[in-house]
């Protein structure tokens, strides 16, 4: 079945560092979404990418959708303690499904 994989599962960085996390789908996606879940919280929608090769920025976060629309990346510059949480990518299910298929998430911790 369709799978959405994220690497790494855990990322520990020093405050101020940059890093990139990746999301790979087993199928081509019509769009990809990123969500952030703070510890003890709920997923919060961050962004949706639709076009092949699309790049979107939100302050220190840069999201990219791969050319083949099967992978995506999230790059965070100058990490802050407020960035702590689990970042999930999600894509629509196969065959025009309405559901979102989530990856397992990338849990970010930041050393101040």
């Amino acid at each position, binding site marked *: 079945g369709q799978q959405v994989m994220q690497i790494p599962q855990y990322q520990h960085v020093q405050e101020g560092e940059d890093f990139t996390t990746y999301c790979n789908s087993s199928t081509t996606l019509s769009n990809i979404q990123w969500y952030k879940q703070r510890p003890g919280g709920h997923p919060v929608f961050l962004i949706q990418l639709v076009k092949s090769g699309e790049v979107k920025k939100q302050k220190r976060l840069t999201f990219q959708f791969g050319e083949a629309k099967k992978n995506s990346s999230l790059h965070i510059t100058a990490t802050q303690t407020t960035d702590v949480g689990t970042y999930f990518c999600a894509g629509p299910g196969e065959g025009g499904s309405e*559901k979102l298929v989530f990856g397992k998430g990338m849990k970010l911790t930041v050393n101040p």
Partner: protein
Amino acid sequence: EPEVTQTPSHQVTQMGQEVILRCVPISNHLYFYWYRQILGQKVEFLVSFYNNEISEKSEIFDDQFSVERPDGSNFTLKIRSTKLEDSAMYFCASSPYQWAAEQYFGPGTRLTVT
């Protein structure tokens, strides 16, 4: 800013009991969803609901589960006879758009089955 609300925040129940989890989606949204998240794991789709009927359900959503929109605002998930493995965080989500567009999640109900 409008948000999805869910009640209760935590529900403890005994195995075999029925539970009803409640959600109030964002008022102008038309598409509603239930997801669950077992502690430390990924978010899993349960069911989507549009125009007063289920539009899609996962293999997790068996005959023990049902959803309802009893009035213009509430959206409920009922588990008829809870099992230990139903213990999880249950999230309601709503979207103004169809086809797995951006979804807005509620704060969740933590269900503990003992």
